[in-house]
């Protein structure tokens, strides 16, 4: 027992030696080859068929086939089932085959990637699939991580490693080990799928180090901005955490799918019900009539009425099986695929700049796009471009940055507006653009205030600069706002060039100047300002301060009061435009006073108790009696068309919730600038508290009593007077998402027009989506661009990824992807709406045509002694769903449009029926059932009455079974074709071709199958010889067809006409308008750029956390050269990873472990 136990332990734990292949191979660990393909050449057919027959529908048809092979039961020839089944199987087979070939190719591609492996002290290039556990691999910049690696060392001095994670998750590793020489042994946990956990030990020369998740680099990440690094392969191929996590992707199904499954179940029940009625009928008939008919038709041995009834049940199961048509599933798949292609092909969703077309990555969710009720959007990269631009400024009471034409009218800035030429400034950033010439002139003319303004911007910040080549400056800013301000100063001639802990070097209008940096009074959330104290080359001491206007204004010298008024006006204007504003001020300092202050500052900064508070007090002391310089306004650039899109979606009654990792002020500001939050709103609830109790109190109390009494888990929409907004932060959300409060949160949130959740973690994003999904029974869509959005994209019914940017994580886990947020409106209002409309039309029509088809058999049963005789020719039964009625309905449901895309945009209200499930529901299904019932009654009894006692015009037979079958099937096909025509809104050449083509094919096939030749060759298969010729030349046949068509169709026309007149739907109304306007909607009124004046200011546009101040002034920071990112990665990093869920790359600070 002991031995076994020991063995068990050792097999659980992974044991490997670095660089010792022989030793590691003895454990038979999986190498780094991966296999995602499902089949190989030999297993494909059996395995795939096995899988296919596990599907209910296919299994059902095999069951039918077996029934048909029993002669006593078989009421239809075997081919009626086999032909469709084979077709369905082969289509699926072909699709699976092509999918698997793609996977094989991908596997091959991945397995054959090259990586450098250290073998016998030499670096050799190896294929990925040949990499073994225990190998040491060298990764270079921008390379994919080969396997799960234990990080050994990197090229970066402080082991700052930049990593871009793939779709794993947001949590990241923080440390790497630097080992100069490795010959260690690793013991660690067995392969598992936990991304956030790793335990193991590393033993080097008798010393043991604990290893945790923070030292592991996972396969699926990409190395960025790091020249090289070495890693020890711990898990390879299928053992990697990436592979262990894959294969569990959630299979999303649409609500129509669920409804369809329910209906199919219902139909099975209904089928059983019909068959039971018919078999009882057969029992009675056999008992009363059949007994007397045995002279002519003896029964089989031992058969009696009850056995006959039993067999008839199954016979009718076969005949009536067309109510659950196998082609339904295939057709639905084809439809969705077709509509997905239309999305892929849409020029209007193609982004020229990034050369990115829209992509439907999941082809099974289209119609759900037409039913979206809630959109959850990320902010950065989705709504905004994550680019800050210096847009406006007010200097000494004069506002700059607005473009006016000759008449003094304000002009909207577009891409074409003339930009200022900064070529006079060799250090200018070429990407910076500004449109107001007056400001340049002011700088050039040497206005002291303007110069002071830019000098302040160039000095008062914590940006770090790097100059790789002469004159090529790169700024690394803690927040993009700061970067924008410093860049603005740079372009206007006040170039921040470099800094040391004690100095800041500028180039002021071409003159290099060095300032002595005496103190940085850093930013924090309470102070909402930052200051620097510098000594200029002339020795003058100055304090420069920038911060939130309210804060600055409180600290101004009375001299500035007049300027303050003017500036306030400007600030209101900027805020009205949704810009982020800062007020700038300065103050000259006395040498003596400063010395004294500095001492006390030193005291405070070294004190052990209440250092923060003491420092704040000290800062407060010196930041007063400031002289106002002006204000700057920075625009957090929205993606193109975001406010319009949001407005459109809001009109379509889609609720948009913004879930962002950004801080509250930023999020709120974006809420305003993209028109979600509005000044007119009655109230904007802000929930930002730290305890559950406070959160409960802050949640607006609206009719709580009624709510508590309700047991229902579905939260209904409630009407509220006026518009409300809700802003809630991550801390509060954590409490609000708890069991006892989440419904309350949801109710409140749903009553608000706009909901913004800020500072939320990826997990919380998913929780919020889940909450709405679960309790609102509404269709949700999540849209985002980064790794932190992956969880919500996967959770929502539909996930949309913004593609065309560097990160692909969101796209990889999304169902649809495109380059710009604004394409969302086209995806939903045009493609989604059409898809939903088409799918519902398809289903309605499909069920109608099959029920009608089938019910005729039911009525005929009463005339043929319930003997399971079919009404139609068997070939017609086989081909009806396959050929005659297949293409027209597919044509209808691929091409139909109620109104074209322009009208869809003009009237976003057209979207509402989808949200309310109006086009296809259980109710609609019941109506179809009744309609089919009516049609089948007409389709059976009119031909019956017309034919039962008549003859041909030459006195010969026409009331025979074959002629009647032909008449009934022709009537049916014509009626369903006309019905299809009635349902078609949009007659393209293709749909015409399909419809007329199918009808002609029907007649052609019929005449062919009933021809002499076919009969003489396949005598027993085509017994209907001559029927078509002999009956279709009879006037009474055509008169009957005409009458059945009129009787089936006109009531429908009359009903629809009545409804259009009395209760027109929004669809009818828009179609009416479209008809009157001759197809082109009136051009939307051009929106004049709004000029709002707002007293609401965006917060101080800095970062969430404390600034870089400590780093900037600490010696530690400047001992190493600052690694800056290349221009390829414009995102900004912060040193504290978990405070910024928004960015997905992190600098890893290394832990130096020099062994040897």
């Amino acid at each position, binding site marked *: 027992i002991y031995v076994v136990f020991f063995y068990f332990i050792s097999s659980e734990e992974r044991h490997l030696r670095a660089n010792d292949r022989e030793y590691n191979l003895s454990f038979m660990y999986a190498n780094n080859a991966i296999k995602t393909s499902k089949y190989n050449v030999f297993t494909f057919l059996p395995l795939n068929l096995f899988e296919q027959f596990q599907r209910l529908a296919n299994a059902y048809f095999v069951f039918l086939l077996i029934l048909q092979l029993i002669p006593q039961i078989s009421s239809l020839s075997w081919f009626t089932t086999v032909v469709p089944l084979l077709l369905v199987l082969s289509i699926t087979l072909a699709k699976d085959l092509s999918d698997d070939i793609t996977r094989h190719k991908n596997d091959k591609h991945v397995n054959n990637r090259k990586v450098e492996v250290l073998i016998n002290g030499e670096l050799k290039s190896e294929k990925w699939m040949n990499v073994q556990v225990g190998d040491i691999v060298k990764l270079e910049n921008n390379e994919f991580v080969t396997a799960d690696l234990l990080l050994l060392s990197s090229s970066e001095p402080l082991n700052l490693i930049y990593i871009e994670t793939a779709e794993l998750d947001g949590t990241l590793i923080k440390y790497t080990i630097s080992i100069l020489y490795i010959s260690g042994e690793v013991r660690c946990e067995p392969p598992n799928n936990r991304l956030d956990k790793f335990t193991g030990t590393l033993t080097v020369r008798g010393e043991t180090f604990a290893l945790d998740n923070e030292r592991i680099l996972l396969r699926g990440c990409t190395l960025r901005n790091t020249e090289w690094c070495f890693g020890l392969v711990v898990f390879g191929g299928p053992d990697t955490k990436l592979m262990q996590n894959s294969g569990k992707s959630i299979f999303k199904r649409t609500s129509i799918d669920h409804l369809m499954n329910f209906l199919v179940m219902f139909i099975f029940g209904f089928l059983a019900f019909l068959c039971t009625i018919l078999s009882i009928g057969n029992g009675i008939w056999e008992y009363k009539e059949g007994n007397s008919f045995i*002279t002519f038709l003896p029964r089989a041995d031992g058969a009696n009425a009850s056995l006959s009834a039993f067999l008839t049940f199954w016979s009718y199961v076969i005949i009536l099986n067309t109510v659950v048509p196998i082609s339904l599933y295939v057709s639905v798949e084809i439809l969705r695929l077709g509509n997905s292609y239309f999305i892929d092909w849409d020029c209007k969703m193609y982004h020229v700049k990034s050369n990115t077309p829209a992509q439907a990555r999941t082809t099974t969710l289209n119609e759900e796009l037409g039913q979206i009720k809630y959109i959850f959007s990320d902010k950065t990269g989705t709504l905004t471009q994550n680019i800050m631009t210096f847009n406006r400024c007010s200097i000494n009471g004069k506002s700059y940055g607005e473009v006016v034409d000759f008449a003094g009218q304000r002009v909207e800035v577009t891409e074409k507006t003339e930009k200022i030429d900064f070529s006079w400034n060799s250090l200018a950033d070429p990407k910076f653009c500004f449109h107001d010439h007056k400001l340049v002139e002011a700088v050039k003319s040497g206005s002291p205030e303007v110069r002071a303004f830019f000098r302040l911007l160039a000095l008062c910040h914590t940006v770090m600069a790097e100059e790789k080549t002469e004159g090529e400056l790169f700024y690394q800013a803690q927040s993009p706002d700061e970067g924008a301000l410093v860049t603005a100063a740079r372009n206007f001639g006040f170039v921040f060039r470099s800094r040391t802990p004690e100095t800041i070097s500028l180039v002021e209008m071409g003159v290099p100047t060095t300032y002595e940096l005496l103190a940085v009074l850093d930013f924090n959330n309470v102070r909402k300002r930052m200051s620097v104290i510098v000594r200029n080359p002339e020795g003058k001491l100055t304090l420069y301060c920038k911060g939130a206007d309210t804060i600055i204004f409180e600290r101004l010298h009375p001299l500035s009061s007049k300027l303050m008024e003017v500036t306030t006006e400007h600030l209101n204007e900027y805020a009205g435009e949704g810009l982020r504003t800062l007020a700038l001020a300065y103050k000259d300092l006395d040498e003596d006073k400063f010395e004294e202050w500095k001492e006390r500052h030193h005291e405070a900064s070294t004190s052990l108790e209440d250092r923060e508070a003491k420092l704040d007090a000290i800062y407060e002391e010196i930041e007063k009696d400031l002289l106002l310089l002006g204000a700057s306004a920075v625009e957090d650039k929205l993606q193109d068309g975001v406010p319009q899109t949001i407005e459109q979606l809001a009109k379509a009654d889609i609720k948009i919730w913004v879930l962002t990792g950004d801080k509250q002020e930023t999020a709120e500001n974006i809420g305003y600038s993209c028109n979600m939050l509005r000044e007119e709103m009655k109230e904007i609830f802000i929930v930002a508290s730290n305890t559950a109790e406070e959160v409960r109190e802050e949640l607006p109390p609206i009719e709580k009593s009624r709510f508590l009494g309700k047991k229902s888990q579905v939260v209904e929409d409630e009407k509220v007077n006026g518009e409300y907004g809700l802003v809630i932060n991550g801390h509060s959300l954590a409490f609000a998402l708890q069991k006892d409060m989440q419904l309350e949160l949801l109710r409140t949130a749903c009553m608000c027009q706009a909901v913004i959740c800020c500072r939320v973690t990826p997990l919380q994003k998913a929780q919020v989506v889940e909450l709405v999904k679960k309790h609102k029974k509404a269709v949700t869509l999540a849209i985002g661009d980064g790794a932190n959005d992956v969880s919500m994209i996967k959770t929502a019914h539909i996930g949309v990824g913004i593609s065309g940017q560097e990160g692909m994580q969101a796209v990889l886990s999304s169902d649809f992807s495109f380059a710009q947020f604004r394409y969302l409106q086209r995806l939903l209002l045009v493609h989604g709406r059409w898809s939903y409309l088409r799918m519902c039309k398809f289903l309605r029509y499909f069920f109608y045509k099959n029920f009608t088809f089938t019910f005729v058999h039911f009525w005929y049963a009463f005339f043929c002694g319930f003997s399971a005789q079919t009404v139609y020719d068997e070939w017609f039964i086989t081909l009806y769903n396959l050929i005659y009625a297949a293409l027209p309905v597919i044509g209808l449901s691929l091409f139909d449009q109620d109104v074209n895309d322009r009208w869809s945009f003009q009237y976003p209200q057209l979207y509402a029926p989808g949200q309310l499930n109006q086009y296809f529901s259980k109710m609609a299904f019941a109506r179809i059932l009744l309609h089919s019932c009516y049609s089948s009654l007409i389709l059976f009894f009119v031909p019956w009455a017309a034919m039962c006692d*008549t003859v041909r015009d030459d006195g010969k*037979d026409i*009331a025979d079974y074959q002629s009647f*079958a032909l008449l009934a099937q022709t009537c049916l096909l014509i009626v369903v074709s006309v019905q299809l025509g009635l349902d078609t809104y949009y007659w393209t050449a293709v749909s015409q071709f399909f419809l007329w083509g199918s009808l002609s094919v029907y007649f052609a096939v019929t005449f062919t199958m009933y021809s002499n030749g076919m009969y003489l060759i396949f005598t027993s298969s085509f017994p209907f010889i001559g029927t078509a010729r002999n009956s279709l030349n009879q006037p009474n046949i055509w008169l009957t067809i005409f009458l059945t068509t009129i009787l089936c169709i006109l009531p429908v026309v009359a009903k629809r006409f009545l409804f259009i007149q009395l209760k027109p739907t929004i669809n009818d109304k828009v179609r009416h308008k479209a008809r009157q306007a001759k197809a082109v909607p009136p051009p939307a009124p051009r929106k004049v750029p709004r000029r709002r004046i707002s007293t609401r200011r965006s917060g101080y546009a800095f970062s969430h956390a404390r600034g870089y101040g400590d780093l900037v002034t600490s010696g530690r920071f400047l001992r190493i050269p600052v690694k800056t990112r290349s221009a390829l990665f414009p995102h900004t990093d912060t040193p504290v990873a978990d405070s910024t869920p928004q960015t997905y790359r992190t600098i890893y600070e290394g832990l130096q472990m020099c062994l040897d």
Partner: protein
Amino acid sequence: MGKKQAGTGPLSRRPDNSAFKQQRLPAWSPSLTAQTVLPTFYILSLVCLFLGIWLFITVENTYELKVDYTNAGTCERCFDLRKHVIASKTACTCTVSFQVPKLFQGDVFFYYGLRNFHQNLRRYMDSRDDAQMVGRKNNLKAPSSYCAPFDFDANKVPIAPCGAVANSVFNDSLTVVYNPADGSEIQVPLYRKGIAWYTDKNVKFRNPPTNDTFTLQQAFEGTTRPLYWQRPVYELDDTNSNNNGFINDDLIVWMREAAFPNFKKLYGVLNRAQGPFTEGLPPGNYTLSINYNFPVEPFRGRKELVISMVTWFGGQNYFLPIAYLVTSGLILVAAVVLTMVYVKVGKNGKNMEE
């Protein structure tokens, strides 16, 4: 990413700007407006009215006479006799007299009608072998299993034609005698040929190959007649040797199974070559004499003789004309209602505003 990029130019991945891909195919979008719907209704109502009247007049001038002879006249005896299977081989003849009220002008068709005979039962309909009846030599002696139990007789000799359908062929022979007022008796002459579909007679049913030396009887050697038949298949018609075997007209007519349990099948067409029948069937008294063989008692059915005129519209069927007239009325009512609704509600377009 599975998809490959075709090129690397700036617009390389731009989708085609074709009308099809952009869903901008030129299209016609009809809709249900008053201008289209109301006229359609009125016109259709008129069309139906016209068709109804036309058909009604046509059918009014088509005469049909049904003579139920199941147990009428002297047939009561035969009816009782046929109740017993033992007496099935005993011949029985009887007569029924009837009156034709007015002249059946033109071609007159004589049908035998059966009621409550389910030719449309699935097992009954399947019980036949088309391959045998198309004269295939191989199939002649190897009848399809569908014919069971009428495929082989008790001695395992194959039955030709096999199956329940052929076995139950209608085997009464009917003779109609005209009794003019002068007391004479003139047999109504009937064409008993050309009563089946051309395609059936020439394609669907064929005899096994014969020639001058190889007679039909020889061709059918090794088969036996169906159980209920009194004559073998090659001796069905004494008068015309070309009407024997599978191509016997009566057999072909019977083999075309009726769709419904009440049906009539063509028996003969009046030969208008001579005598009082050149105009058609004159009014007066007639006697139907029957060779009563077909038992209907077992299935509680009725047998009848149907004498009918035929027009372009077929026989006398009042359903379509009346249905058209009723439909016409319904459409008119609907049209009026729709017009009223339109004038009152729809016309001003108030409902169409949002």
